[in-house]
């Protein structure tokens, strides 16, 4: 299985550690509250992970190259708006709207990639700029009003419907969760089994050595950013489907949650190392934490403090592992 065998990191211990923390958190919360350990709450947690998880997968791709993508949050919104324009305004069928949104995501990624490679703007700056540009464009295109998908009745089924529930009524796992796992599996496969993935790690590990190996870095990097953008487009579809609307003002701030999940999952911000499996575990840790603290009625202010410490703690654990 491509997800579990991620060679370039070789850090099975790290994954075990992150996975261990996840299990520990679940056990602790289960012990403290009977309302936490219900099947429906577990499904809630998975569903709450779906959007941020897909965004985090997108962020992982870019972070492995040693870059950063601050625009994932607003790019997600922009692709949701794109879906809204295609489906509600132009009345296109749902599959075209979905494909259109994913292509738009790839296009925004390509644009970031272009700024980074051809105009030599550092990723932090280029994607910071894109974050604002896309946020503004979402508001302009929609006239700041949300676009609703009431004319495309099947659209909400994409994230909120449950194929699993049709087969096993007792386990109504929302499709959004399946999509998250599918995206993770596909991206995991791309990163481990294709040239694009190999160059993603290679660029993050040593960009100059990769260039001197005769690899056309600029083209591949644009491809990598486009892939990340397409994944962001999937997140856009998920959130739009979930809310049955494209909310143009949403999205900013999601990039930091996504990056936090990536980091908790053991991906190095300096590039070259990281796994999709780790990222998914990282995103789950964040969801379990917010869900659990809320169920225990911890004050919202303290929930924020706890999340902050978890991020610091997770990275510290990673550092300790690397030292020994």
């Amino acid at each position, binding site marked *: 299985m491509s997800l579990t065998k991620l060679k370039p990191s070789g850090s099975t211990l790290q994954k075990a550690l992150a996975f261990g923390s996840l299990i520990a958190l679940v056990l602790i919360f289960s012990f403290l509250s009977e309302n936490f350990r219900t099947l429906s709450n577990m499904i809630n947690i998975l569903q709450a992970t779906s959007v941020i998880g897909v965004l985090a997968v997108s962020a992982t791709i870019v972070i492995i190259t040693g870059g950063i993508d601050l625009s994932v949050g607003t790019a997600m919104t922009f692709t949701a708006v794109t879906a809204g324009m295609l489906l509600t305004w132009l009345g296109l069928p749902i599959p075209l709207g979905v494909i259109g949104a994913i292509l738009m995501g790839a296009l925004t990624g390509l644009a970031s990639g272009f700024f980074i490679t051809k105009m030599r703007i550092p990723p932090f700056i280029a994607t910071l700029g894109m974050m604002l540009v896309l946020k503004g464009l979402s508001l302009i295109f929609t006239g*700041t009003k949300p676009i*609703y998908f009431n004319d495309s009745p099947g659209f909400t089924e994409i994230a909120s419907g449950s194929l699993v529930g049709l087969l096993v009524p007792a386990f109504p796992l929302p499709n959004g969760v399946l999509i998250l796992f599918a995206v993770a599996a596909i991206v995991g496969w791309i990163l481990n089994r294709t040239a694009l993935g190999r160059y993603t790690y290679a660029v993050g590990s040593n960009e100059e050595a990769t260039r001197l190996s005769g690899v056309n870095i600029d083209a591949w990097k644009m491809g990598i950013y486009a892939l990340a953008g397409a994944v962001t487009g999937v997140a856009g579809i998920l959130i739009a489907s979930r809310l049955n609307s494209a909310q143009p003002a949403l999205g900013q701030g999601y990039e930091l949650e996504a990056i936090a999940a990536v980091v908790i999952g053991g991906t190095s911000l300096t590039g070259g190392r990281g796994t999709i499996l780790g990222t998914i575990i990282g995103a789950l840790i964040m969801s379990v934490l917010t869900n659990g603290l809320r169920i225990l009625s911890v004050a919202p202010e303290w929930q924020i403090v706890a999340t902050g410490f978890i991020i610091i703690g997770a990275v510290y654990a990673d550092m300790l592992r690397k030292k020994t």
Partner: protein
Amino acid sequence: MITRRLLLGATTALAMMTTGAIAQDKMYVPLISKGFQHQFWQAVKAGADKAAAEFNVEVTFEGPETEAQVDKQIEMLTTALSKKPAAIGFAALDSQAAIPLLRKAKEAGIPVVAFDSGVDSDIPVATAATSNVAAAALAANKMSEIIGGSGKVAVIAHDQTSRTGIDRTEGFVNEIKAKHPGIQIVAVEVGGGDHLKSAEITKTLLAANPDLKGLFATNEGGAIGMVQGVQEAKAKVTIIGYDSGKAQKDAIRSGLMAGAITQNPVGIGYETVKAAVAAAKGQSVAKDIDTGFFWYDSSNIDKPEIAAVLYD
């Protein structure tokens, strides 16, 4: 080549932005709001624009992106004052932080009309606002009426620091405590007005309290998220929302939401500009302009007096 084309594009864009500049002879009244992306603020703007046309004045409307950006709003106020307007409309995110600037405005003879929420100062010549405390208390009474005076209830606030966030939350909570002892408030969570976050919070609240009977959201984003969360959890809970917007109206029509409090945003915008124009001309204005609030549900949503204050 590329850079020249970019430059050209940028210049054109700049030219387009400045064509809307202020005509010299018209009275200029900038409105500094708490936001602009939310439908509520768009409705306030619509009211302001209506008044602008009626009194033949130039009105601009701007606000920061989130209601936490006090600093950005102060900056906007500073810029607006430097343009020497005839009067200014101001919806303070943090009234204390704005007082030095408001003093400056007073010294420069620029009348200030507070809107949406009050400013803790005697500088504003008038305040056009909803009484949020009274409005939230009405929501509390309606909640008690619908759920039968007893049971567990939770609140999702849109903010824990702004005046409206505090007033609506406290207005609701205090009214329940004072008048409805049978009702227990199990949680006050903060959803930041973010639809998705509010939906996740709702589901968690339902998981933590399977016997939850009622939910109150203090703004539109929270209410929509609440509806989504309750639907996904397939729970039966009484939801009371705040403000309007298409999604909320639909939810009320279909029975997913019991009802909501609406302010009169169009009235707020209209009254603010009207008062500002009067003050600039040296006429006397009423100190407190109550723009009113209404309870609406499926029974009265289409009545003309309600439909007039709702927005999509």
